[in-house]
């Protein structure tokens, strides 16, 4: 506990400074022209001093991407994306481009920070306010890294990993999500700019949540983020990405890829809080969050657990999945997806049972308000060799108002007679009697909705690391503001 407290303090100290430049690879202030072609990819690769094999991999992905159709099966609707009308490489925004003080920041954004109880200085950082460097951030980053290095944990940006740990990257990059996986993941493979890399060596329990650390790191990872986490035999790591506070962001399309690899007896817990800009109440603007996340339980008795709280983005297209290859391996997916106004979410998971006695649990809570649509889409697949595989799935949907939609699309494919698959689903409307009961006890409509929805999501929220659970609860309330009355 002491170590965690210390960590949090350090992170806060860092958050007050200009930490981001201590972590992200140095990039000179130039920008590639608009659009994507092989020259741009060569440019990105050269900027990062990448080895040839990685450039080749990117180009292979790019050539494949050109021939790929857009995935069209999801229940989301948006105009075609003009991929040539975007910048694929630009230096991180310098401070001079940002607002000069909080006075220049959208008051709506500030109101949200206020409600989440985010300290003023961190608000400035999140909103991209130019803050004077008062602090040698590099030294803190070093202390941090030292602590991890003592136990042999590698935690760095993807660019640094390519440079310093090329063998690990080469062995595992694309081994869970191949470059040809799907249109969005393939685009990422061709054009990813940075991301995070974690390697936890044999038998090591990572001494800290790799969460708050990331919260700082996240500022500049950009739209094509690539994350790779490898937990070697008998190791454990808990990783939290994202932030409960909305961040200033000008990229509309986010096509990230996350790959997890758990070897024998290893465990990875990956938690996400996603609160990107959802667009305004008329459905104008907002982020397209098209993310491919997949974990491979390669080793025996390994375990991968995904927990996600998705409240932001105009469109969410995301299916964190587990490939349960090792015998007795365990996959878990806990999800809360909240949509309001005109947001669209199509999210769920795939549990692929390959090894013997593999088991998976899926708990998905979808909450739809306003004119939004929330879809759970999931696949449970039991391969012929997966003797004794088990799955339990529970999908609950809650509707607020009568202009929104909740949909559940479960796919089950069982090719082994000994497999056991359970699926439960419920759909309910938030009850007028529950609302009245809460209001009679003094809660406003918004407080009542927040309380009832938090109760509805409890099983998922309690899976989050402690320090984020409280913020996530507040976020649930905030994201549903204006959904009643």
């Amino acid at each position, binding site marked *: 506990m002491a170590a965690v407290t210390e960590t949090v303090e350090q992170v806060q100290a860092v958050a007050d400074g200009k930490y981001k430049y201590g972590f992200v690879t140095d990039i000179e202030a130039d920008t590639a022209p608009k659009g994507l072609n092989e020259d741009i990819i060569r440019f990105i690769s050269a900027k990062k001093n990448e080895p040839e094999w990685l450039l080749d991999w990117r180009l292979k992905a790019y050539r494949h991407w050109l021939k790929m159709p857009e995935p069209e099966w999801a229940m989301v609707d948006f105009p075609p994306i003009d991929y040539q009308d975007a910048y694929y490489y630009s230096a991180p925004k310098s401070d001079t481009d940002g607002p000069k003080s909080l006075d220049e920041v959208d008051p709506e954004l500030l109101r949200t920070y206020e409600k989440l109880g985010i300290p003023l200085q961190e608000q400035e950082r999140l909103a991209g306010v130019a803050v004077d460097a008062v602090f040698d951030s590099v030294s803190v980053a070093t202390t941090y890294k030292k602590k991890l290095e003592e136990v042999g944990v590698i935690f760095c940006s993807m660019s640094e990993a390519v440079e310093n740990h090329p063998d690990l990257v080469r062995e595992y990059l694309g081994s869970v999500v191949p470059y040809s996986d799907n249109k969005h993941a393939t685009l990422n493979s061709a054009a990813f700019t940075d991301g995070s890399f974690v390697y936890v060596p044999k038998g090591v329990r990572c001494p800290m949540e790799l969460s708050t650390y990331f919260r700082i790191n996240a500022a500049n990872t950009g739209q094509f983020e690539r994350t790779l986490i490898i937990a070697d035999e008998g190791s454990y790591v808990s990783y939290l990405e994202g932030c409960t506070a909305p961040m200033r962001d000008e990229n509309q399309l986010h096509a990230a890829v996350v790959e997890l690899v758990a070897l024998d007896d290893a465990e990875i817990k990956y938690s996400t809080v996603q609160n990107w800009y959802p667009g305004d109440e008329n459905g104008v603007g907002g982020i397209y969050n098209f993310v491919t996340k997949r974990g491979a339980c390669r080793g025996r008795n390994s375990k991968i657990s995904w927990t996600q709280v998705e409240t932001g983005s105009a469109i969410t297209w995301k299916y964190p999945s587990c490939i349960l290859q090792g015998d007795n391996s365990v996959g878990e997916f806990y999800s809360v997806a909240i949509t309001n106004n005109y947001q669209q979410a199509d999210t769920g998971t795939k549990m692929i049972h390959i090894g013997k006695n593999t088991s998976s649990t899926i708990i998905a809570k979808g909450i739809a308000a306003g004119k939004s649509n929330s879809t759970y889409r999931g696949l449970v697949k039991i391969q012929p060799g997966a003797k004794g595989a088990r799955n339990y799935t529970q999908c609950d949907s809650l509707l607020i108002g009568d202009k929104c939609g909740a949909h559940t699309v479960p796919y089950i494919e069982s090719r082994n007679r000994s497999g056991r698959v359970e699926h439960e689903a419920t759909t309910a409307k938030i*009850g*007028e*009697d*529950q609302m*009245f*009961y*809460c*209001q*009679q*006890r*003094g*809660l*406003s*409509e918004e*407080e009542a909705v927040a*309380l*009832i929805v*938090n*109760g*509805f*999501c*409890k*099983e998922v929220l309690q899976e989050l690391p402690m320090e984020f659970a409280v913020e996530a609860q507040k976020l649930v309330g905030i994201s549903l503001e204006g959904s009643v009355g």
Partner: protein
Amino acid sequence: MLEIKDLHVTVDGAEILKGIDLAIAPGEVHAIMGPNGSGKSTLSYVLAGRDGYEVTGGSILYKGEDLLEMAPEERAAAGVFLAFQYPIEIPGVASMTFLKTALNAVRKQRGESELDAMQFLKLVREKAKLLNVTDDMLKRAVNVGFSGGEKKRNEVLQMAVLNPTLAVLDETDSGLDIDALKVVADGVNALRGPDRSMLVITHYQRLLDYIVPDRVHVLAHGRIARSGGKELAHELEAKGYAEFGANEAA
């Protein structure tokens, strides 16, 4: 405390209350008795401000203010409490959390500071003890899987914690055996005081043996058909509601 004048209320186009007059002074306990369908629960919902109950005439003054102008949560903050006949389940929300959220919401509206976790816990434990509400019950989700008696005890606990000035108890005796009834009645009696008024709605006289009212009113066909002292309740118990034109519904 409460002054209802010529109150007319319509639900789904049908007039349920057809001119109610009722005045309750501070510290008084009034009982409303009446056959099923006479409008007893409607009256309690109108006082609490539930949607779907349209006031077509008359007025309600609470502490001199127009109660009908206030939102349900404003009424709660002003000290109006309704103990529900059928308490509502809120899955996933611990009773303790619910109590704390409610108390702090009310305190916030009243311009008071929120209680911290320790102060709150002390307050709840003290009130809970009186009502035989165990820590285990406080950890369980609000009313989910509660027995009839637990639900009603939980309602009275909420009342004790929120400390209202006007408490409306809607059929708080329904579904209780005699032991549970005593516990609930003791809890309610402990809250009687010169500054708190109560409106006790019941079908049976039994509850009024334990919560002895200052006045008893008979509600029938949307009107107050008769008012009297506590002896009126005994008379009704003996004769039933037949003289008010209702079928004996016992």
